[in-house]
């Protein structure tokens, strides 16, 4: 097991009147190579949870193991852990500070103790991975657009060569095309390099599309943990937790109530379309060939209708 939480609890302001139990006896096991979506309303404890993954927060109770080792053990090297488990915060572009893009991305690997040449090799590779066009490598990060800045910030974490990449709402504030590009890029990294991805998101449509496992956080506990289809079948309970199911899932339930023989677990446009066509006795269109290249290298006009 790559990452394991054993009976982890975290309390803010213990013993005071403002005492808040942010995590309440959480047990989790994350295998290498999974693409995990984390959902939960504001204040549910999900940010507290992800900050435990790379030892930014110390659990009040319980144990966290990375590759089987206790990360709060006596001689444990947390600095290395933080390069293995990379965390991209919300609005990471606010953390850009260097005079040009390439130097900014080199900051992480230089801190790891790599030579300038090695750091540069890592930075160049990371920038290619996030699909930032080469013409911007020497620009000031502050001259870039919002979506480009965010790519640079993600590259800064990738340059440390993490095995686990945690992203806290990486698409907040981006336009729909920018959102698709970033998520396609993350999905590409996941497939190509086998990095474990942990994606925190408020968009049910996005996690349904990309994640193979969904973790729901509510009141510091994990009430649901399973495939998106399993989790979204509890859509009424999710609503009570301030969450929802993707819009198409509601269509499918509505159709079933009206007597249609459709698959209510469909949670993407393609699945819903195919299930409805089948119910109408129509032939289902052949799936489009999957495009494995990162979005940045596709022709702009080729953006498929999706989600």
């Amino acid at each position, binding site marked *: 097991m790559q990452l394991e939480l054993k009976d982890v609890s975290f309390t803010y302001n213990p013993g005071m009147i403002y005492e808040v139990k942010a995590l309440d006896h959480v047990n989790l096991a994350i295998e290498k190579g999974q693409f995990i979506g984390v959902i939960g309303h504001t204040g549910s404890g999900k940010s507290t949870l992800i900050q435990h993954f790379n030892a930014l927060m110390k659990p009040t109770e319980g144990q966290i193991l990375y590759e089987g080792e206790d990360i709060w053990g006596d001689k444990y090297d947390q600095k290395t852990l933080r390069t293995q488990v990379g965390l991209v915060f919300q609005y990471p572009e606010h953390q850009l500070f260097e005079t040009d893009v390439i130097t900014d991305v080199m900051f992480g690997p230089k801190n790891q103790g790599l030579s300038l040449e090695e750091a540069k090799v890592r930075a160049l590779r990371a920038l290619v991975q996030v699909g930032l066009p080469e013409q911007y490598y020497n620009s000031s990060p502050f001259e870039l*657009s919002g979506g480009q800045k965010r790519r640079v910030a993600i590259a800064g974490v990738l340059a440390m060569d993490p095995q686990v990449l945690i992203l806290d709402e990486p698409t907040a504030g981006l*336009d729909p095309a920018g959102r698709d590009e970033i998520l396609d890029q993350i999905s590409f990294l996941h497939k190509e390099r086998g990095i474990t991805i942990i994606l925190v998101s408020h968009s049910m449509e996005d996690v349904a599309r990309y994640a193979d496992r969904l973790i729901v956080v509510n009141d510091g506990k994990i009430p649901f943990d399973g495939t998106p289809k399993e989790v979204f079948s509890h859509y009424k309970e999710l609503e009570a937790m301030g969450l929802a199911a993707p819009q198409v899932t509601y269509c499918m339930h509505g159709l079933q109530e009206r007597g249609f023989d459709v698959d209510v677990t469909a949670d993407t446009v393609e699945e819903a379309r195919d299930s409805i066509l089948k119910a109408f006795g129509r032939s289902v269109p052949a799936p489009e060939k999957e495009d494995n290249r990162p979005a940045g290298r596709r022709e702009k*006009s080729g953006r498929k209708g999706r989600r």
Partner: protein
Amino acid sequence: MGIVRAEGLKHEYTKYREDESEVKVHALNGVDLDVKEGEFIAILGHNGSGKSTLAKHINALLIPTEGTIWIDEIDTKGEEDLWKVRQRAGMVFQNPDNQIIGTVVDEDVAFGPENLGVPTEKIVKRVEEALTKVGMLKHRDKSPNRLSGGQKQRVAIAGVVAMRPRCIVLDEPTAMLDPTGRKDVLRTVHELNKKEGVTVILITHYMEEVVDADKVFVMDKGRIVMEGTPREVFSRVEEVKGYRMDVPQVTELAWELRKAGLDLPAGILKPEELVDALAALKQ
């Protein structure tokens, strides 16, 4: 004449490159606009399309470099009318934490009317009214940092409402909120529009949030490139996507089904509409 009207609105700024050469950038490049009092308008556009620049012209945070914008028939260029403009058109931004300044909810909402010079006893009444309208009165004695994102945004809206504006501009007010917070903020804004007749101009990247607007504008390269009811705009799926935008997921599903040969109407906007249309088709 509309509450917000623009003619040939341009906003140009100069960008200085590292080699000290100058580049002129047109954030707005000829916007004509006429918003009637009481309308609910949504503005869509990709990052950098000019929609936030347009929003900042509506309450005179920016002044046009060419063309004119009138708020309730007042030209924003006249410096002496600045506060009249800002009282008529209030603004709510994306990040609630950047616009809440009071240590108690009450106090925060009172900031606007206080600045307008409203007498104290009237401020108390206004604050109460504003908090009631956004459904936050029971939290009036709380510290804003103990509220959720959606609640903070509603307090920010109350702060604007307490100034009794004719028009509220909201620049991606839900970008940082969870689904419930988003729903609450949207409902609040719709209520203000319907019950109080406040004109609303909503900027957003969430397509689902604009389906109940009276009109949708799509911006690109500093211009308005699409305009119409949500149904009119979203029935042109490919054109919308060409501007780096999207359509609601259910609209996309209906569009896919039409392409596959089902005889559905164009521009379906809500799940229940699609269910009804499919049920009608089956009969």
